[in-house]
Structures are given as C-alpha cells and as structure tokens.
C-alpha cells in the first residue's frame, strides 16, 4: 500500500531530513513511526501526502509514484488519505460541524448524505454534542478528536497521524489510541508518528524508528524496545 524506496529528502538550505529510507507497509497495517524530534517523522508523512517531494528515491502510495505526481493529480491523492496534523489546522471561523464538513464539500458530496457522515464522524470521536461549538472553545484533547473526525469523514483507506498525542496527558492519549485501534480493526491502514513511546507499551504493532533521518529498524514491538533504547543513547 505504501512503499518507500531509498528515499532522500533534503530541504532547501541543506538540511537532510531523510537518508535512504526504505520500507513497505501492507494494506490494513497499523505502523508507528518513532524518533526524537527532528528525526524526520513529519517529513516522512508529508512525503506520503505529497506535501513535500523527495529529492531521490520513490514514494509509492496505492501503486502511484507520489514523488512525481502532477500538480493537478495531488488533490485526488489527498482525498484518499486522512491526515491528522501536528498543529491540528482547525478553522476557527466556523463551528465544529462545518470543520468536519469541509472535506466533503471539497469532494462535492451530496448535501444530505454529507450531513449524515459528519454526524457519524463526530459521534465516533464523541463530539456530537459539541457540533455547534467553535473549535477554540474545545480542550486540547477535544481539538485532537475533532481533527480525527475531519480526517475520517471521507472514509479514507489510509490514515496519517502526526504526533496525535503530542501534548496530551496520558488519559487523553489513551482515548485517542483507542480510537485509532478501532479504525485498525475495520481495515484502515494507519501510520502514526510519535516521540512518546509510552503509548506503545500495551500495543503489539510494527514500529519504524527514525534517527537523524535514517531508519534504525523495522521491527515489531518485541525487538523494538531495544532498538529505540539504543537510538536514544
């Protein structure tokens, strides 16, 4: 479903965010990307959504080489992805409901059907009662859940989450992880970046550990603990 082949990304100014990164994620997998801040986690996710383009190597999503995708085709790629941004990117000039409505408006969804979908998505993340509120009045955890609702309202096959538990306390983080697991159960491919390894404790999932832009290991949890520990050393 997602394949990186010897991917290099260097930002203008010379900063090398990713070095020779190769991995493959199968359909329906739930994969965590770990690493210190600046390790290249966000860059990796951005390459999948064609927000950034690789300098070398290829990024294949759904059999499409995203790195060389034409400008005009990018919107249609992104419609198949649900993206949960590190900085939420919620719009404070409209209420919760309309924030979740935006992706459906963009796709030109039927008006009545899209109302149903927005309610379903809000219900899924437990924000149905807040649909008329302005996102600015929501707590950090609620804003994160709103962001998730907006990412899934389109029913994407791939969900990308950049530090979804970044500045949440343990209880909120646990809630968010529970939501992700429920998506995993219904067959969504998930790619979640985090620097907070505590959320991995009770999870039996694959981990891609990045360190200074290089992939340290592509292991399941059992082997992962050792490798990340050495990564942090």
């Amino acid at each position, binding site marked *: 479903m997602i394949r990186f082949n010897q991917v290099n990304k260097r930002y203008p100014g010379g900063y090398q965010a990713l070095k020779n990164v190769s991995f493959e994620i199968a359909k329906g997998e739930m994969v965590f990307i770990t690493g210190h801040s600046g390790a290249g986690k966000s860059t990796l996710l951005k390459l999948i959504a*064609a927000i950034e*383009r690789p300098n070398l190597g290829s990024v294949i999503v759904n059999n499409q080489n995203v790195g060389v995708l034409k400008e005009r085709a990018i*919107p*249609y*790629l*992104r419609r198949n992805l649900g993206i949960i941004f590190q900085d939420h990117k919620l*719009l404070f000039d409209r209420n919760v409901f309309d924030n979740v409505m*935006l992706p459906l408006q963009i*796709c030109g969804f039927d008006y009545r059907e899209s109302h149903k979908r927005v309610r379903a998505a809000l219900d899924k993340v437990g924000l149905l009662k807040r649909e008329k509120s302005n996102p600015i009045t929501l707590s950090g955890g609620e804003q994160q859940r709103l962001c998730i609702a907006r990412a899934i309202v389109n029913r994407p096959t791939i969900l990308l989450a950049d530090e979804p538990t970044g500045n949440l306390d343990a209880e909120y983080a646990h809630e968010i992880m529970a939501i992700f697991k429920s998506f995993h159960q219904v067959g969504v491919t998930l790619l979640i970046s985090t620097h907070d390894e505590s959320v991995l404790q009770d999870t039996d999932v694959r981990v891609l550990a990045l360190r200074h832009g290089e992939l340290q290991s592509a292991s399941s949890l059992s082997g992962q603990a050792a490798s990340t520990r050495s990564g942090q050393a």
Partner: protein
Amino acid sequence: MRHAIAQIAGVLRRMFASKLAGLLSILVTGIALSLPAGMYVMLQNAQGLVEQLSGTPQISLFLTMDTKEDDVDKLRKQLAQHPAIARTEFVPRNQALEHLKESTGLSDVIGGLKQNPLPDAFIVYPKQGEAHALEELRNELAKLPKVELAQLDSAWAYKLEALLKFGRMVVLILASLLSLALIAITFNTIRLQILTQRDEIEVARLIGATNGFIRRPFLYFGAIQGLLGGIMAWLIISLSMLLLNWQLDALSQLYASQFSLHLLSPGDSLTLMLFSMYLGWLGAWLSVARHLSQNEPR
C-alpha cells in the same frame, strides 16, 4: 448544487461583513465605469443628432440682390439639367422673411426693418451625399451667374462626424485604461480576501481541494462585485441623463425645439453590466492564480 449555493451565500456574507469596504469598491468601480460609458452615451446622442441633421445634404445658393425673375428661371432650368442634382427648391426672399418671422419669434425686430435684407435662394438637393463630391458640386455652383454664395449646409456635420470619431477614440482609450484599473482594484480586493482566508485555503489544499475549488468563491466574489459596480455605473449614468434632460427640457422650450438625450439602450446596459462582471471575474482569477502559484509544494 447546494454546495454552490452555500458558497455564494458565504461569499455574500463575507461581502456584507465588511460593508464599508465592499460599498467603496462598488462605488469606485461604478464611477470608473460611468466615465467612459457616460461619454459613450453622449457620443451616441451626438451621433443621432448628426444623422438627423445631415441625413439629406443640401447646398444653399444665395442669389445676388439684383436678380430678376427671368434670371431665376434660367438658373432653375440650368440646375434641373445638372446630372448631379436630384431636385431643387426655390425660396423667394419674401417667403424667407416670413419664415424667419415665424420660426424665431423676432417679428418685432423684423417688422422694424425698412426693407427685406434676405436674398432669393435655391436649395439644391444633390444625388449623392459623399463629402468630396458635394464639395466639388458646391464649387461648381458657386461659379454660376447671379449666385452670390453657395453654402454646403452639411459641411459642419462632416466636421462634427470627424470630431465624433476623435471622441470615440478618446472613449476607447479611457475605457481601456479604466478597465485595467478595475482589474487592478479587484485584484487587490481579492488579495486582501485571500490573506484573511489563508488558513482556510491552506487546510483545504492539504485535504484535497483542487485549485478550482479554492478559486471558485473568489471568482464569485469578483464577479458579483463587478456586477454590482456595473449596476452602480448604470445608475450613475441614468441619473445624470435624467438630470441633464430635465435641464435640456427648459432649454429646448426656450428654443422651441424638441431635443432630449437618450439613455443607455437595454443592449448597451446589459453589455456594461456583463463587461464589468467579467472584469471583476478576471481580476479575481489573476489574484488567486498568483497566490496559488506562490504556494505550490516544493
């Protein structure tokens, strides 16, 4: 469809959120457009007047004061045989004086005259109305015996015609320049709009909005603002014409003539509004295109 309606509603809401700014833009557009369009209307009116007056070109032959009746007969025959002349009309000096008394209301003054100062005259209607041929015919007729003066009555009309051509060029230049200015105005208005909606545009692009989707509400905005500006221009012109006609009425009563300015025709009105709408749309398009090209992913 309902998304489109919702979008237009959103655009209008945004437009009326900044009442003063929106109104000012519309007013500026209206005034800028009413200048060339108003001049155009004036030219149309002048054009109509010229056509009305110079529709049948005439040459007036004023005869010398000592002309006898058989001189007149001789001249009449000569003119009748001339190949370039369609017909002639003889105006005896007495009749001319009567006509002058009636039409100008100067009977008191004329009555005080000891003798009729007017000469006999022929009005010659040439077969063709081409300026050069008329001028030649006038020169030829001026050399006839007993003809004191041959006057081409429509000569001024041709001069006016040339002047109108000049005027039309002025309107064209003015319209082009002001159109550019209008595009610039919309460009700037939309640029400011884009700045206030930066976040929305960024988020929309990140979750799969096409450029067309992002462009659309701004194009609606530009087009609606342009249309309202066009309507404003139309109102300004119509109101001005009504005011001018009101004054002209008083004036033309004094001159005992019927003359009033025509307003913009329905076709011209529609053209004005659609053109203004198009300019707004174009300005918006350019503005969004610039923003989008500046924010492509690397």
